[in-house]
């Protein structure tokens, strides 16, 4: 774990390639490996699983999430 990140931007830089949970404003969760993101918080993820109310609903090999829907991005210790 890199506990040295100081700013949100540092955090976002540090988590590329890591397993993450992305929560959207709708409450839906996406778990997968963060490929990259941009300044709008648009996100590209790999091996993504979609959880609605905690239940697995879908899997995507690659997926793009439009940034305006993102509530938070959180790192996972493991999948």
């Amino acid at each position, binding site marked *: 774990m890199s506990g040295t990140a100081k700013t949100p931007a540092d955090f976002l830089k540090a988590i590329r390639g890591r397993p993450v949970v992305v929560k959207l404003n709708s409450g839906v969760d996406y778990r997968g490996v963060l490929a*990259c993101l941009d300044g709008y918080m*648009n996100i590209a993820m790999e091996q993504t699983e979609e959880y609605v109310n905690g239940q697995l609903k879908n899997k995507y*090999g690659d997926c*793009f999430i439009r940034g*305006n829907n993102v509530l938070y991005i959180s790192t996972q210790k493991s999948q």
Partner: protein
Amino acid sequence: MAAAEEDNTVKEPLDLIRLSLDERIYVKLRGDRELRGKLHAYDQHLNMVLGDVEESVTLVEIDDETYEEIVRVDKRTIPFLFVRGDGVILVSPPLRTS
């Protein structure tokens, strides 16, 4: 610079969309709508033109008597469709063999 832009690397999220041009993609939209269609054009807002589109709308109705939730999926097809980007939640390209 120009020559290097057409490569298969994903440096920013929109590259994933760029690599899906002329491929069938899945789009999840606000309002419980999903689209499957061939991506012909897009811009940075995720405005898109899709071809041979199948739209699925998921509706949940409550039965008047039993109060059971009835999930209905309405489907329709549209030859060519412009989709405004602000309704887009997620785009998933077909599985890439790279």
